[in-house]
């Protein structure tokens, strides 16, 4: 019966070419937007080099310090991370690093802006960078405060014209570093591994950062397994209660260890009730709400084209009242007819989905080529395809179920007469 239904669906689509074109435009446009959004999220969140062990990695990106009348929210400082986040049970490795800062370099009188990140040696053991040449700097390099650097491919091009760079030196932010390794560009949307230049933490111009509870540092934690996350988070939360404050204006500290998805939720968590979809002031995470909110947004976005498609489907179905009457007269149940019309609608949506998939690939290619997001390579892949397929199916079902139900309720006598009753 499926074959017969699909053949009929094909004929019906060809019969009213204008309606079909309008329907396909609506479906494919909607799915293009959704698939591009999915591809961007996939680019931000999926495990990919150098964040290959993301499923067992937690990050500490934000802290909130409070007193009776004072509040301070920012990235945590080195002291907080070093004193209270080291040696958490279940953590295999921990790395502390700064946020990426824009720093200037001058090359032949030309200013070059780069993003520079200062890290410890463990950073290179948790993240799995592929080295185009050379090697990472080591914990010993950091301890000895050696002025060595790892740079990305773009920086190699900027500073050395793309020639081999290991052993050569360059200046950044008024300091001179010797290149020990070169890695491929990492997209800006990958917050933890992104930078143009990585140098040891200890090369900072002052060591005052070591005394700061709040500052511009972050940390990542490689757990033995994701099942250790709750215990790690609990222990860290308990340690925060014992923080010794260096500034008497403050007496409490909150900060949360977050997965990448939780971090993204927190970063997007805006509005009057912060902590609703991300991590709240008590360090509780609500990433489930984040995914639910994305789902609701997707459904809301699909709502208008769905209503349009429902209307188009209703007029198509009423044209086919006689067919409905015949099918009922010859033994079709309402349920069978709902199935038939759902198959037709899902088939239409999948055609729209296929067009949308091709268009989304074009849009993503253009987005990548535009350089709007540094080093981003937005692309269609298996995950995005499956999401697109899922969204097309949801869209097909949403827009088909009501017309199909209405149609199945037609009285056979009225349907044979060509109208509703």
């Amino acid at each position, binding site marked *: 019966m499926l074959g017969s239904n699909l053949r009929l669906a094909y004929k019906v689509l060809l019969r009213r070419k204008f309606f079909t074109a309008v329907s396909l435009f609506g479906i494919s446009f909607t799915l293009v937007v959704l698939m591009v959004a999915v591809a961007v999220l996939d680019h931000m969140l999926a495990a990919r080099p150098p964040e290959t062990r993301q499923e067992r990695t937690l990050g500490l990106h934000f802290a909130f310090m409070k007193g009776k009348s004072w509040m301070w929210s920012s990235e945590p400082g080195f002291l907080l991370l070093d004193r209270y986040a080291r040696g958490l049970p279940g953590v295999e490795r921990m790395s502390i690093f700064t946020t990426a800062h824009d720093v200037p370099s001058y090359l032949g009188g030309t200013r070059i802006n780069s993003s520079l990140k200062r890290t410890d040696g463990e950073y290179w053991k948790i993240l799995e960078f592929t080295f185009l040449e050379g090697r990472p700097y080591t914990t010993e390099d950091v301890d000895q405060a050696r002025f060595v650097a790892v740079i990305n491919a773009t920086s190699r091009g900027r500073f050395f014209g793309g020639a081999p760079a290991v052993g050569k030196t360059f200046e950044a932010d008024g300091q001179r570093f010797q290149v020990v390794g070169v890695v491929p560009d990492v997209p800006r949307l990958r917050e933890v591994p992104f930078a143009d230049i990585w140098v040891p933490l200890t090369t900072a111009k002052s060591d005052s950062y070591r005394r700061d509870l709040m500052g511009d540092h972050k940390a990542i934690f490689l757990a033995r397994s994701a099942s250790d996350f709750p215990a790690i988070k609990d222990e860290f939360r308990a340690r925060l209660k014992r923080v010794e404050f260096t500034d008497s204006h403050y007496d409490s500290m909150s900060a949360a260890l977050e997965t990448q998805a939780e971090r993204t939720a927190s970063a997007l968590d805006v509005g009057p009730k912060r902590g609703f979809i991300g991590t709240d002031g008590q360090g509780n995470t609500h990433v489930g709400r984040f995914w639910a909110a994305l789902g609701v947004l997707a459904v809301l976005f699909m709502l208008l084209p769905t209503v349009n498609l429902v209307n188009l489907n209703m007029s198509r179905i009423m044209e086919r009242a006689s067919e409905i009457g015949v099918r009922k*007269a010859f033994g*079709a149940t309402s349920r069978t007819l709902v199935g038939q019309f759902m198959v037709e609608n899902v088939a239409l949506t999948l055609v729209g989905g296929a067009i949308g998939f091709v268009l989304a690939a074009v849009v993503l290619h253009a987005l990548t080529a535009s350089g709007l997001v540094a080093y981003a390579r937005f692309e269609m892949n298996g995950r995005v395809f499956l999401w697109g397929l899922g969204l097309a199916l949801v869209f097909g079902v949403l827009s088909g179920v009501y017309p199909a139900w209405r149609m199945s309720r037609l009285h056979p006598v009225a349907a044979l007469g060509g109208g509703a009753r």
Partner: protein
Amino acid sequence: MIQLRGVEKVYRTDTIETVALTGVNLDVAEGEFISIMGPSGCGKSTLLNLIGLLDAPTQGQVALHGAPIGSYRDRDVAPIRNKEIGFIFQSFHLIADLSVVDNVEIPLLYRTLSAKERRSLALQALERVGLSSRVHHFPSQLSGGQQQRVAIARAIVGRPRILLADEPTGNLDSQMGDEIMAIVHDLNQREKTTVVMVTHDLLRAERTARTIRLFDGRQVN
């Protein structure tokens, strides 16, 4: 085969009540060929719809093979319509987007048959009505008489024991009408299919075993 006892059909809207049929009692024996006659609006098609379980009586009872129809719920009557009853309509009601053979297969879609079995039965039914050479044509490529023959093939493909024909020659010229009636009579005589036919044509009614006459929703014979 078919029994109607005290059947009444009333159509109600918010403001008006229309009695389409009242006090109809009817027995049709197995293999019988009867016709229903009467002026327009007298309830002929309503009676045919009640016999075909396309509509439920407001009062009274319809029975097939001695078994009263207790429920007119979709899932209860759809299998009976599928297995026991074949319909022929005045305006053919073929699906324009489907080929002749696909149209004929429709009743078989609602049975558990393989595609091969369905195709074989549909081709047999088309051969029975003399349309073997037109199986891949579309309805719009056929004459009115040929379209009605396709409709007959569709009605008999599931080997129903009852054939309900609502003015089957009403849209055809007399020669094509005669051809169609010859097929219907042949089905009745050779295969003992019970036929109930609504017609305005006295000559065609006289060729059936019995004629039921209706006037203003009542049996008048």
